[in-house]
């Protein structure tokens, strides 16, 4: 006990900003460990402990929600009573079903992971760099950062993403607004405040289709209502005066139904030809023939294309938001030989010094049931010296470097409550740096729903600065 107390006082004397838990206070467990969403490098916001995510700028999502809620609310208040009496009672029922569909799919589109690709780990990035350097010819300047793949007898170029440090898979694009590579990137939609990509395209498509049904339904109901009122001989103006909400609905629906119907039609065409908005606008597959038959991803059959876009099993989220970060100070894997070491070295050393069995055990739990340290330890141990000696402080420094490398935001190796504020300021700096790299104004195709952005998006050809 006395030795532990003296260890404690030693710890307090150490001028680190954080108190390092003494070795015997083992099981820090998930309580102390941080989740991956807290150190996520992209410009996203997370709620409910990482379960819900959204883009940093919510765009006009509040406006979208407001318009839908207001219009539907007015519909139920002003039009439904009249129509139930004079027409049929299934009018509000249909309206309710459509509204629920629209609302749920909108929330799913906005708050789910669009298919973000996590950035490459430092070791991967180094490996890719090595391959690039070895393949390039130094006399002609920097080596080309593209790879070519033949898909379906067509040459597809894979570009290197400087932010994510990897070669982007085909159909993947880097969204500069969210600062993420998104798989099967369609567009960044400001109306839903999120990117639309592989994982949430079906939600987005269902949203716009059901929204077009809802707006046309409300539009026709309101028109019927006003027509029936006006038919009583009092005229349209008095009908509008009796039901002012209907006037508001009429205006909103009239202006939105055309654009939403148009958008649904456009996306139905995209789904049937297995294209993304990004590819369509850039004309990736038009080539010389000018038709989309040269799209290598198309199955040449409308139904199979629709099935492959909308009905494939939903891919999992690759960013593992709720997984735990490998801990800096791990719970005691009781190694009796480590007791003599100083406490700080002890903790980091123990973290990186598990046996192979321990590696297997820690690597064993499925990532889907991530509890603590899902990735196991090996990644955090860098290629160190061949014979690290226990008394040497170098392996601990290198180990902590390796551990530090895990966090792309570069958090320090000291666990503390103060780490959060340190970390947040570092994240901010990282984000500011990212902003300077990726110019948010030159982002690629933003939703064609914005009439303003369509001409500009046709002009821009790249999604990443």
């Amino acid at each position, binding site marked *: 006990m006395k030795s532990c107390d003296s260890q404690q006082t030693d710890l307090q004397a150490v001028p680190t900003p954080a108190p390092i838990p003494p070795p015997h206070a083992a099981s820090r467990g998930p309580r102390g460990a941080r989740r991956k969403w807290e150190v996520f490098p992209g410009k996203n916001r997370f709620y409910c402990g990482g379960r819900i995510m959204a883009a940093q700028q919510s765009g006009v999502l509040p406006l979208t929600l407001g318009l839908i809620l207001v219009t539907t609310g007015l519909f139920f208040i002003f039009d439904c009573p009249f129509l139930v009496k004079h027409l049929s009672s299934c009018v509000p029922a249909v309206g309710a079903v459509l509204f629920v569909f629209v609302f749920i799919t909108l929330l799913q589109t906005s708050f789910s992971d669009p298919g973000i690709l996590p950035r490459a780990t430092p070791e991967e990035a180094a490996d890719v760099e090595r391959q690039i350097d070895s393949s390039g010819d130094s006399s002609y300047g920097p080596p080309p950062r593209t790879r070519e793949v033949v898909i379906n007898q067509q040459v597809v170029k894979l570009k290197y993403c400087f932010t994510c440090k990897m070669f982007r898979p085909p159909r993947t694009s880097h969204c500069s607004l969210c600062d993420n590579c998104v798989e099967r990137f369609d567009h960044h939609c400001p109306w839903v405040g999120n990117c639309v990509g592989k994982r949430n395209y079906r939600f987005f498509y269902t949203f716009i289709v059901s929204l077009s049904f809802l707006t046309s339904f409300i539009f026709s109901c309101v028109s019927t209502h006003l027509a029936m009122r006006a038919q009583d001989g009092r005229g349209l103006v008095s009908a509008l005066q009796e039901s002012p909400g209907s006037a508001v609905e009429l205006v909103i629906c009239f202006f939105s139904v055309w654009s939403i119907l148009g958008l649904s039609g456009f996306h139905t065409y995209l789904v049937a030809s297995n294209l993304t908005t990004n590819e369509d606008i850039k004309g990736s597959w038009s080539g010389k023939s000018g038709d989309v038959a040269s799209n290598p991803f198309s199955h040449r059959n409308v139904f199979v294309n629709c099935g492959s876009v909308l009905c494939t099993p939903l891919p999992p989220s690759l960013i593992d938001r709720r997984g735990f970060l490998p801990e800096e100070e791990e719970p005691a894997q009781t190694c009796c030989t480590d007791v003599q070491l100083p406490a700080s070295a002890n903790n980091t050393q123990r973290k990186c010094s598990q046996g192979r069995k321990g590696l297997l055990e820690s690597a064993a739990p499925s990532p889907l049931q991530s509890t603590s340290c899902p990735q196991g330890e090996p990644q955090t141990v860098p*290629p160190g010296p061949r014979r690290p000696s226990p008394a040497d402080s170098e392996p601990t420094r290198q180990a902590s470097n390796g551990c530090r490398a895990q966090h792309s935001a570069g958090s320090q190796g000291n666990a503390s409550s103060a780490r959060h504020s340190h970390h947040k300021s570092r994240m901010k700096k990282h984000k500011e740096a990212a902003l300077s790299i990726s110019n948010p104004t030159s982002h690629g195709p933003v939703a064609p729903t914005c009439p303003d952005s369509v001409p500009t998006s046709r002009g821009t050809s790249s999604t990443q600065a």
Partner: protein
Amino acid sequence: MTSWMESQVETHSLQDFQRPAVSSKVFIQRDYSSGTICKFQTKFPSELESRLDKQQFEETIQTLNNLYAEAEKLGGSSYLEGCLACLTAYTVFLCMETHYEKVLKKIARYIRDQNEKIYAPRGLLLTDPIERGLRVVEITIFEDRNIGSAR
């Protein structure tokens, strides 16, 4: 005397187990020749030549590729699941485990098996690609001290 030697040997092997030095990592990249489906290259990396049979490696990667193909397969059941999900405004995804997730668990089990039976005895460790965002299969090569190490 012998018990002292035994204790020395024990400590030695304990230390070995506690500090496996990572000698290098090999990354098996994705193979996009069949499109965007998850498939890894079966080309045998030269760094593994001393540790592993080419055939064993290819078998592992091929099985993984087949499992991922099964996860992403477009068939009758996936159509049904898609239609049912659409009708419920995709709320079933909140309560039900998707087909893909089920296969991912299978893949995790397979990788664990392979590590235990084949890779760990050779001083290698396969990392589940899902932990690398399905970008690479990471194989960690540990420095093998037990075989021919001079201490």
